[in-house]
Structure formats: structure tokens, C-alpha cells
């Protein structure tokens, strides 16, 4: 558990020092006025893809001894990815922060973001409640 806490602290520092928690950086990207976020995103995916491929090819085990595997996402009708992604995107564009940065911003002293976090929990709860009636 300590390892996950340390990884979280590290991720939180990357988010803040890399300005990924910055409302200005997010809105800059969403208004197509700068490349910063796209470059971060592309290099993050490239490094993660290389790391994943290496771990898989070596059939590596994690430090806890489990065989490393990433379960594939179920495609289904695909509606959940289009509509869910769009609803998330609307919230992301309005608030200027996605879930990781929301938590990091609370730690960085933007107290009002705790309300946004609670609203996000309420949104997830509402999804859970409506889930049987939604197309997936």
C-alpha cells in the first residue's frame, strides 16, 4: 500500500509541476491555441505503450507476483464510449480539469474544487442508479 501512496504523490507532483492541473493549459488545448497538452499526452502514451509492450512480451510478473495483464474493454454497442465520453468532455471543458487534477487541486489549496469532486461522486452515483436503463 505504501508503494501506491508514493506513486500517487509522484503523480500529484507531475500533475502540478507539469501544469496539467492548470485551467489555463486545459482551455488552451481545448481551444486549439497551443500544443503543450497534446505533446504531453502523445509522449505519455508513447512511453506507456512501450512499457506495456515490454512487460507483455517478457510475460513479466508484477512485484506482487501476479502475471501482468490488461483486461480488454468490452466494445458492446459502443454507445457508452461515445455518449459517456461526450458527457465527460462537456464537464471537462466547463471545469477545465479531469478527475486526477481535481484531487490534486484540492491538495494545492483550491478548496472549492472539493465541491466539484463531490459533484463528480454524485454524478457517478447517479450513473450507477440509472445504469440498468442506459444503453451500453
Amino acid at each position: 500500500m505504501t508503494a501506491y501512496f508514493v506513486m500517487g504523490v509522484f503523480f500529484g507532483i507531475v500533475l502540478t509541476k507539469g501544469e496539467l492541473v492548470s485551467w489555463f493549459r486545459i482551455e488552451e488545448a481545448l481551444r486549439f491555441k497551443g500544443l503543450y497538452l497534446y505533446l504531453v499526452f502523445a509522449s505519455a502514451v508513447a512511453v506507456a505503450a512501450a512499457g506495456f509492450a515490454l512487460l507483455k512480451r517478457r510475460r513479466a510478473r508484477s512485484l506482487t507476483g501476479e502475471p501482468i495483464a490488461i483486461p480488454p474493454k468490452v466494445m458492446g454497442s459502443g454507445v457508452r464510449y461515445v455518449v459517456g465520453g461526450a458527457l465527460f468532455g462537456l464537464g471537462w471543458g466547463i471545469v477545465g480539469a479531469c478527475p486526477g487534477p481535481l484531487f490534486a487541486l484540492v491538495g494545492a489549496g483550491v478548496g472549492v474544487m472539493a465541491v466539484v469532486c463531490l459533484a463528480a461522486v454524485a454524478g457517478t452515483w447517479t450513473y450507477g442508479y440509472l445504469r440498468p436503463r442506459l444503453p451500453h
Partner: protein
Amino acid sequence: MIEELLHRSWPWYVTGPLLGLVAVGLLAIGNKQFGVSSNLRHLCAAFLPGNVAYFKYDWRRTGLWNLVFILGVVVGGFVGGVLLANAQPVAITAAAQVSLATLGVRDSSGLVPRRLFNWHVLLTLRGFLMMVGGGFLIGFGTAYAGGCTSGHGITGLADLQLPSLITVISFFAAGAAASFLLLPLLVPR
């Protein structure tokens, strides 16, 4: 010198690769998938499962590591955003400055515009819709899509999963639409 280096913000070629390493590290440590929005579900399961099937699972077994991780993120936010805070305004492009000025945002110091994100604004109709409405959409949308910028955007894309590509295209398009069309209606006048 060291002091200045610690407080300076990082360039993209430092930030991006380190972000990718977080995802690789979690997999290597305990076969865990990097994804933040799962925690919203774990929080529901832990505190308010109600009678909802979606929240009836052993959150301690599957999600405790992630809740510990996100607690670390809050602490990391304090370290990076307070202890190592960058005193300079964020270096967004001149074009971005012009664009954001149309929203009445001319001061790009701090992590968020204080003019938009404070308790007084929260108590206005527009501010409430922006923060509570926006937060609600983030929570609902990520749960529906089964992931956010980390789970789909980094883990899913790096694992070459088509559902993640669809989700990423969808949230970037909707995010741009929201920034151009909704945000101007919601910022305080």
C-alpha cells in the same frame, strides 16, 4: 539556483514521459491499471452504496489501492502546487491569452483563475452550474464511459484498445465544444 530549478514548471518532454511511467509503474508494482475515475465509484461503494448493484462489490479488495493512490495525489498536489509552487504565470501561448481574454480571464497566475473558482462564484447560478454541473457531468460521463483521461486516454490508448480511442475522440470533441460554446455562458460577468 537549485531553489529556482525546483520551482520552475516542467517542459512537456519531462511531464509526458513521467506520466507514462506512472501507468507502467502501477502495472509493474501490482498489476494495477492506472485510472483515476474508478475512485469515484469506489467512494460511492464505500460510503453510499444504497441498493444499487453497481456499487455492491468488495471495494476494499479491488479499490483500496486506488483510493490510497488518490490520497497520495492530494498530497502530491500540495507538494507540487504549494511547496514547489511556480510564482510565474503559466506560459500559455499569446493566442490562448487572447482567446481566454474574451472570457474575461486576463490574469494567468496560479493554477486556476481565482476570479472563476472561489466560494462567492459557487453561490451564483452561473458558478453553481459551472462547478457543480461540470463536476456532475465529469462523474456521470466517466462512469458511463468506464474511464477518463488516465484510464482511457493513457492506459487504454497505450494498450491499443479501440473503445478507448472512441472515448478519447469523443471527450476531446465535446471538451472543445464546451470550451467554445458553454463556458462563455457560465463565467461570471
